[in-house]
């Protein structure tokens, strides 16, 4: 499902092996989006906060994986909205609060959100969060910055190049040339806007395999939505034809 704007489509390329886990991206995101700090507790991991939250659009996941050489092997993976081309949240949103920008960012209009939480359940990656007012929040790829030719706050601050921002095709092409085993998000859900360059299996990095929109949501979108209009229009047309062709009931005709 190639995006019409695939030529202009922007993306963030995440390269976990370049990440040093400094969390500057988390801080820069809070700074740009004016998000408050979150009181957390020690969960036995450096990962903090433990997951995305209404005040944490991105986090670094500190995956601890088995290793022969070291007592601890960390794989730092930046987690945020994946900016799907075929986005379940946009599909299911009943108020048009979620939308896609020209650059391919899945952004939201807070004022339009009605707090129904359907997007939460349609997202394959468990990304959307709700704030204290019951409105959606999530990473929007700094659509306000990228629309003005700047890079997202997290990418701008990243000191190692673990986060790169640019033309999606270019980023993927470069990563492939550099010999990464897997480009996660190259094809999934029409192509993700957050792509990952992995040296090993995505599972090792804590990524879900074959992400998909819930089948009931796709079924509803593809068949039920059009059927409601076709059904309504169909019976109105059928009634008009019946009226003209057969006409109204006459109580006296039955006697014959």
């Amino acid at each position, binding site marked *: 499902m190639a995006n019409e704007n695939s030529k202009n489509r922007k993306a963030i390329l995440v390269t976990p092996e370049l990440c040093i886990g400094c969390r500057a991206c988390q801080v820069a995101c809070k700074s740009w989006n004016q998000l408050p700090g979150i009181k957390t507790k020690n969960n036995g991991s450096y990962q903090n906060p433990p997951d995305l939250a209404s005040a944490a659009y991105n986090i670094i996941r500190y995956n601890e994986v088995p290793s022969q050489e070291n007592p601890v092997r960390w794989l730092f993976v930046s987690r945020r909205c994946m900016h799907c081309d075929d986005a379940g949240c946009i599909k299911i949103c009943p108020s048009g609060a979620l939308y896609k920008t020209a650059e391919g960012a899945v952004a939201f209009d807070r004022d339009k959100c009605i*707090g129904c939480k359907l997007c939460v359940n349609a997202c394959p990656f468990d990304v959307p969060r709700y704030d204290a007012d019951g409105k959606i929040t999530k990473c929007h790829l700094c659509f306000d910055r990228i629309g003005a030719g700047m890079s997202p706050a997290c990418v701008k601050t990243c000191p190692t190049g673990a986060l790169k921002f640019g033309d999606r095709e270019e980023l993927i092409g470069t990563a492939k040339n550099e010999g990464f085993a897997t480009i996660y998000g190259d094809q999934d859900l029409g192509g993700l806007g957050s792509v990952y360059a992995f040296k090993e299996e995505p599972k090792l990095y804590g990524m879900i395999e074959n992400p998909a929109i819930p089948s*009931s949501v796709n*079924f509803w979108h593809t068949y039920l939505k059009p059927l409601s209009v076709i059904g309504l229009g169909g*019976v*109105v047309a059928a009634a008009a034809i019946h*009226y003209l062709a*057969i006409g*109204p009931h006459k109580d006296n005709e039955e006697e014959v």
Partner: protein
Amino acid sequence: MAEMVRKESGGAILNHWMLAISCILLIITGFAFLFHLDSVGAVFGGYETMKTVHNWVGVVFGVSLLFTMFQYLGDSLKYDADDAEWFKVAGGYLSHKVKVPPMGKHNPGQKLYYLGIAVFGVAIALSGLGIWLMKDNATIMLLSHLVHNVAFIFFCIMVPVHIYLSTLANPGTLQIMTTGMVPLELAKKRYPKWMKAIGKM
């Protein structure tokens, strides 16, 4: 003035219009959510208020639906040999030349229509509550969303059929839901078995 018989009580008529108005309001706002009809949203002052209206009108619909069960559910579950014959001539709806068997108070088309409304009405009301109140349970939420939309299609198709059959297609029917009265002569033709049962024929 011709002698009249009462087919619907005042309470039943009031409840019918409560159900009808809430149902149509729910269909309109439902379409607005389905296709992001901003102009419809604007009528309610935005989608957020429209959601509140949709939810609470849904409650009115559900309560009203509950009342109809006392009125129609019993009758809608009883079918006899004439009802089977009725289907063979398609109730006389597709041709005026066929002989329609004698009917009771409601014909089997009406009875099945009511059963459909009852079943899909309960489904759409319960699934609506699921979407409204069970937001944090993904399984219930997605199942409710699916059921709500399947039932919605039933209403999109059956409500216009009901409106057409009770107005243009069968002149003289609408007054059953306004005054509740039917002229005796007409009632004898349309509902002979019912008239016999209440000793008018």
